[in-house]
C-alpha cells in the first residue's frame, strides 16, 4: 500500500480523491510543528492557489482549498536547499518566500505576516526544521522508527561480496590494517590488497596517497583475474617525489594478473587539472617511476564544474521550457557532455579489463567522486550481478558508501549553507549514467526507472540513514545502522514496485554501451517530471506486464491440460496397450 509508505510524490501536485478527509499521512514519529491558513502557492504551471501550509519535522505540506479537485504539495524537508524571504512585505502585509529544492524545482509562497510580531511565522518554523543540522537538532532519519519485514542494513556484507568474486585467493588477501580506520579514515575497514605487500608497506603507501587512500581492489575478473583497483592521487608534488612501496604495490597489482604485462592507470581528471594539482603537493604517476604502466587521462571535470552544469540545467528545464531554443539551451549546460565523458571513461576501463585482460588503477584527486562514478559504472558493465536490484544496492554500499563518497558534504543534509562549495551532484550524475544504460539495454537491468528515481528522492529526503554521513567510520560512530532505517529495508519490502518486467537474467553477460551522442538523451522523466505537460512512457511496461500475466495464466492452463491429458491417456492405455503416452513438451520460457 503506497499511501502508508514513505513515497515521494512523482508529480508536483497530487490530486486527492476524497477531499473531505484530512489527508496528511503522518509517518511514525512525525509531528506537526506549525501550520497556517491563507497561504498562497504561486504555482508556475497553473498560477496562484490558496490553501493551508503545514510543517512537520519531516515534510512541508501544502493543501489547496480553493480549487476542485483538491490537491496537495507534499515534499520532504530534506529536499530543501534554501528558504528565504523575498523582498519586503507589501502594503497589505504580504510576504513572499522562495523555496529552492535539491530536486530541480523552486517553489514560491505568499503569506501574510502575523500581526503579533512575537508569533513566529510558519516559514520561520520551516527554516528551523528544514535545516536541523544548522539548528543543532537531529535529522528525521534518527526519529523515524518504521519497521519493515527486511533489514536493509544487512544487504551488504563485504566478506560475502568479495567471496562471491572468489576472494581471497592466491594473489589477493584481506588486510586488517584499516580495521579501526587508522590508516585511512575515509576507507572501509575491509581492504583487499596483493598478498606480496605487507601491512607495513601499505602504511608507507598511505602517506604517499592523498588522504591515505591507497590502491585497493574493487573488483576482479572471474576468468582473467584482471583487477579494478581504486585509489587517490599520488603526492608527487612539484619536486616529483617517489615512493618505492607505492611503485611496488602497483607492480604487485600487475603481477597478480598473469594475463597481462601491463597496467593501465586511469586518471579521471583532465591532464591540465592533474598537473595543476602538483602545485598543491598532489599529482599523478610518472611513467618513469612506474614501469609497464600506462597513464590515461579521462577529462572529467571537477565537482564545481558539475555543480554549475546542473544549476544551468535547472534554469533551462524549470519551470518552463523555452521552446525555440530548447536544444541550444540544453547544450549550453554541458550536462550531456559530462554524462558522455563519464560513460566513455567507464567504457574504456571496462574494455581494458574485459577485452584487454589488463588490470586497471582508477583515481582522481581524492578518489571519492569521479573514481566511484567510473568504477561503479565499469562494474555494472562487467558484472551482471550489479544489474540486479540487490546487486545494485551492494554496489552502492560498496563503491559509494564504504569507500567514503562524501554524501553529507555533497548533498548538505540538513545544512542551511546552500552556497557550500562542497556540494555537487556527483551521485545524481552516476544515476543518470545508469539510466542512460538502461535505455540502451532495456532488458539487462532488474530494476526500473522508478527504482532510480526513488533512490534519488531518498538521497535528499533524510528519511533513511543510508546516505547520511561522509564515511563508514562516521556512520559507525553515529551508530547510523542502529539508530536509523535503511532505504533498502523499504525498497526490499516492496520489490514488485521496482522490478523491470522486461528483465532477462543473463549470467556473465558484459554490456558495452554506446556513448555516441545520438544515444544520450536528457532524462526527461526525472529532470522535467514536475512539469504537468511531461508525458511519462510507462504504458509500454504496463502492456508488457499484462502480457507476462497472460503468459503465466497460459502456462498454468497448459499444465492443467497436460495433466488431464496424461490422466486420460493413462486410463485409456490401461484399456488398450501400446497407445502413445508421451505428452507435449512444455513450452520453453526465457525470462
Amino acid at each position: 500500500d503506497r499511501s502508508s509508505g514513505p513515497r515521494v510524490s512523482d508529480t508536483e501536485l497530487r490530486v486527492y480523491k476524497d477531499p473531505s478527509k484530512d489527508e496528511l499521512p503522518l509517518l511514525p514519529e512525525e509531528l506537526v510543528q506549525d501550520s497556517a491558513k491563507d497561504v498562497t502557492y504561486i504555482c508556475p504551471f497553473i498560477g496562484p492557489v490558496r490553501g493551508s501550509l503545514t510543517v512537520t519535522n519531516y515534510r512541508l505540506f501544502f493543501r489547496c482549498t480553493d480549487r476542485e479537485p483538491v490537491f496537495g504539495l507534499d515534499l520532504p524537508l530534506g529536499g530543501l536547499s534554501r528558504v528565504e524571504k523575498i523582498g519586503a512585505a507589501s502594503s497589505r502585509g504580504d510576504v513572499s518566500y522562495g523555496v529552492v529544492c535539491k530536486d530541480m524545482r523552486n517553489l514560491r509562497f505568499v503569506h501574510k505576516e502575523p500581526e503579533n510580531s512575537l508569533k513566529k511565522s510558519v516559514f520561520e518554523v520551516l527554516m528551523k526544521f528544514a535545516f536541523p543540522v544548522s539548528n543543532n537538532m537531529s535529522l528525521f532519519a534518527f526519529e523515524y522508527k518504521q519497521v519493515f519485514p527486511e533489514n536493509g542494513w544487512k544487504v551488504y556484507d563485504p566478506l560475502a561480496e568479495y567471496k562471491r568474486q572468489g576472494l581471497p585467493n592466491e594473489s589477493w588477501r584481506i588486510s586488517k590494517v584499516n580495521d579501526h580506520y587508522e590508516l585511512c579514515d575515509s576507507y572501509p575497514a575491509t581492504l583487499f590488497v596483493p598478498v606480496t605487500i605487507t601491512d607495513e608497506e601499505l602504511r608507507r603507501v598511505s602517506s604517499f596517497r592523498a588522504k591515505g587512500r591507497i590502491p585497493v581492489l574493487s573488483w576482479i575478473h572471474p576468468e582473467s583475474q584482471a583487477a579494478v583497483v581504486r585509489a587517490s592521487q599520488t603526492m608527487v608534488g612539484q619536486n616529483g617525489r617517489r615512493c618505492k612501496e607505492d611503485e611496488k604495490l602497483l607492480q604487485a597489482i600487475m603481477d597478480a594478473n598473469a594475463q597481462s604485462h601491463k597496467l593501465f592507470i586511469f586518471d579521471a581528471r583532465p591532464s591540465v587539472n592533474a598537473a595543476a594539482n602538483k602545485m598543491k603537493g598532489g599529482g599523478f604517476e610518472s611513467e618513469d617511476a612506474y614501469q609497464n604502466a600506462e597513464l590515461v587521462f579521462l577529462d572529467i571535470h571537477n565537482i564545481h564544474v558539475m555543480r554549475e552544469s546542473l544549476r544551468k540545467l535547472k534554469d533551462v528545464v524549470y519551470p518552463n521550457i523555452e521552446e525555440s531554443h530548447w536544444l541550444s539551451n540544453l547544450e549550453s549546460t554541458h550536462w550531456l557532455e559530462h554524462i558522455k565523458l563519464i560513460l566513455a571513461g567507464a567504457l574504456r576501463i571496462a574494455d581494458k579489463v574485459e577485452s584487454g585482460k589488463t588490470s586497471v588503477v582508477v583515481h582522481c584527486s581524492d578518489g571519492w567522486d569521479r573514481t566511484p562514478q567510473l568504477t561503479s559504472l565499469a562494474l555494472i558493465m562487467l558484472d551482471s550481478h550489479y544489474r540486479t536490484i540487490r546487486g545494485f544496492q551492494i554496489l552502492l554500499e560498496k563503491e559509494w558508501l564504504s569507500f567514503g563518497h562524501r554524501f553529507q558534504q555533497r548533498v548538505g543534509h540538513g545544512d542551511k549553507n546552500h552556497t557550500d562549495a562542497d556540494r555537487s551532484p556527483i551521485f545524481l550524475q552516476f544515476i543518470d549514467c545508469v539510466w542512460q544504460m538502461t535505455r540502451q539495454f532495456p532488458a539487462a537491468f532488474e530494476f526500473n526507472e522508478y527504482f532510480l528515481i526513488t533512490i534519488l528522492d531518498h538521497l535528499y529526503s533524510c528519511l533513511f540513514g543510508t546516505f547520511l554521513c561522509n564515511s563508514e567510520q562516521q556512520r559507525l560512530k553515529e551508530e547510523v545502522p542502529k539508530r536509523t532505517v535503511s532505504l533498502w529495508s523499504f525498497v526490499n519490502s516492496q520489490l514488485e514496485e521496482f522490478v523491470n518486467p522486461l528483465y532477462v537474467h543473463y549470467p556473465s553477460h558484459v554490456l558495452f554501451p554506446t556513448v555516441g551522442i545520438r544515444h544520450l538523451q536528457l532524462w526527461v522523466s526525472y529532470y522535467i517530471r514536475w512539469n504537468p505537460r511531461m508525458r511519462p512512457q510507462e504504458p509500454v511496461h504496463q502492456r508488457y506486464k499484462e502480457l507476462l500475466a497472460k503468459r503465466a495464466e497460459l502456462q498454468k492452463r497448459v499444465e492443467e491440460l497436460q495433466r488431464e491429458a496424461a490422466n486420460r491417456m493413462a486410463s485409456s492405455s490401461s484399456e488398450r496397450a501400446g497407445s502413445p503416452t508421451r505428452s507435449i513438451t512444455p513450452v520453453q520460457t526465457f525470462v
Partner: protein
Amino acid sequence: MEHIRTPKVEQVKLLDRFSNKSVTGTLHLTATHLIFVESNSTSILHHHIASVEKLSLKTNGCPLLIQCRNFRLVHFVIPRERDCHDIYSSLLRLLRPVSYDELYAFSYNPKQNDQQREEGWQLIDLAAEFERMGVPCDQWQLTDVNREYKVCKTYPRDLYVPIMASKPIIVGSSKFRSKGRFPVLTYFYQEKKAAVCRCSQPLSGFSARCLEDEHMLQAISKANHNSRYIYVMDTRPKLNALANRAAGKGYENEDNYSNIRFQFVGIENIHVMRGSLQKLLEVVGTRSLSMTDYLVGLENSGWLRHIKAIMDAAIFLAKTVTVEGASVLVHCSDGWDRTAQVCALGSLLMDPYYRTIKGFMVLIEKDWISFGHKFADRCDQLDPDPKEVSPIFTQFLECVWQLTEQFPQAFEFSEWFLIQIHEHVHSCQFGNFLGNSQRQREDLQLKERTYSLWAHLLSEKQNYLNPVYSPSFAESHPVLEPSTQAYHFKFWRNMYHQYDRSMHPRQSILKHVLTLKDSNRELEGTVQALKTKLQKFSVSTSPLNRKEVQQEEDEEVFGEEAMEDAPAITGGERTVEGSSATENGYGELMGSFGSKNEPGAVTLEFGVARMTC
C-alpha cells in the same frame, strides 16, 4: 543493357561511414541495381540513388560516393580509375530515367497473375472509405463534376461536396482557386457532423472576390448545424500569403465571406523544408561529432521545429473539429503539400481507424495520392527539377513516428512500416506513388502494368505490427492529444540512420515484447492443441494423431524478426553485448583521440533494407 559499360568490378572497398572500417568485395552493376557482394550482399536500387560523386584519386584507388534518398550513404573505393569512371557514368545515365517506362515498376514482376495484381489494386477503395465516414449523407453528396478531370486536373474523379453546392457554384469556385482546386470534403467527423475540407489558395489578389466561392464556403458552413462558423486554416506563414497577393493569389478576406474564422498556421514552404533536411543530414552525417555541434546543429537545422509546426496545425484542426464541432477548410498555396500534411495528420489524430495498418494505407491513398501530392516531382522520380524536390511526405511520416513515440499503444503498426513506406515512395518499384496525379496514373495504366505496394505490405503485415498496440487504448482514446513541448520531439535515428548499423543499440523493448507475444501465441496454440486432443478422447478413445497436433503448433510461427534476436541464455560463458571498443560511439570517441581502428566485418543491411527487392 546499353548504358552499362562495366558490369563487374572486383576488389572494391566499401568504407563504413562512421568508423575506419572497410570491407572488400565485388561490385556488380545491373539494369536496376548496384550490388556489392562480400560475405553478405548490399544492393542499391538505382531509383534510390540521389547523387553519385567521383572524388579525386587516392593512393588506394578512386573513391565513389553514392547518396541515396533513403538516407543511405555509400562510400566505395575502386582500384582502377577507369572502372570507377565507367560505373560513375553508367550510373549517371541509369539514375536519370527519361521516361516512365524506364521506371522499375514497369519491369518489376513479383510472379503474380493478373487476377492477383487486380486484387492488389482493389484493396483500397476510397468510395468505401467515405461510406465508412458516413458520406454521402443528407448534407454531403458525391459530385461527378470532375469525371473527365475537366474542372481540376490534379483532383480525383470522385469528389464530395455539400448538398447545396450546385455545379455552377463548383465551377465558379474552381475558377477562383489556384489550379482549380476548389473546396472539397476530405474527412467527415460523424459524431459532430463536422467536415474537414481542403482546397488551394483563392485568386483574390488585393481585392478580387468570387460570389460562387463565397457561396461554396457558405454551403460548407450550412452543412454543419453544430457551429455557426467555419474555420479557414491557411497553413502558410502570413508573410508568404501576403506575398502571394502580388501575384494575384492570396487568402480569404474575412469581410467577404460570412461566418468564417480565418487563421494562419505558419508552416514553411517546400524550399525551406528541403534546405532544413539538408542541414539536418549534414549535421548527423558528420563523423566525430561533438555534443555541442550535434545539439546546436540539430536546432539550427530547424527540422524538429518544422515537425512541431505541422503537428501544432494538425492538433488545432483536430481540436476545432472534435471539441468545437466546427468544420474546417484547410489550404496552403496549391493545396497539395502542407494541406495534405495537415489534413492527413489531423484525421489521424481524430480517427483511430487511420492508426491501423489498413487505415493508414487508406489515409495515404486519400489525402496524398488521390488528391494529387506531386510524388513524381517531390521525390525526384523522373528527370527532375531540383526546385520541386522536397521531403514533404517524409515529414508527414516523421510526424506520425513522433506520435507513435508519445502514444506507443495507439498504433497498430511499428516504425518499420513507416520506414518501409518511405523506402517505396522512392523505390518506384510499385505503381502507387508514380506520377503527380490520379489522371496521370490512369494515363500510365499503372493498374494494368504495375503492382500495388499495399498488397505487398499486407502480405508481410507480421513484420510491421506494433507489439504493444492495444485496441482498447484506441477505444478509450479516440482522439489523440499529443504534447508539443520541445523535448517531446526527438531525432528519428532509425529513419535517418537506418543503414548505419553501428548507430543503433542492440536491445529493443519492442523485440522483447514481440518475443513474449510470440511465446504467448505458442502457448495458446498448445492450449488449443491440448483441448482438441482431450476432445478427441471424449469422442473416441482412439489414440491421438500426434502429427496433426504438431502441425497445428507449427502454424503459429511469428515474424522472423522476433525469433532472430530472441535472447539466449548462456551458461557460464562470458558474453559481450553492445559496441566493441572498435565500433560505434566508442569508435567515434577513439577517432577523436587519433587512434586507429582495425578493420572488421560490417554489413550495411539493417532493418527493412533486406526486404527491398
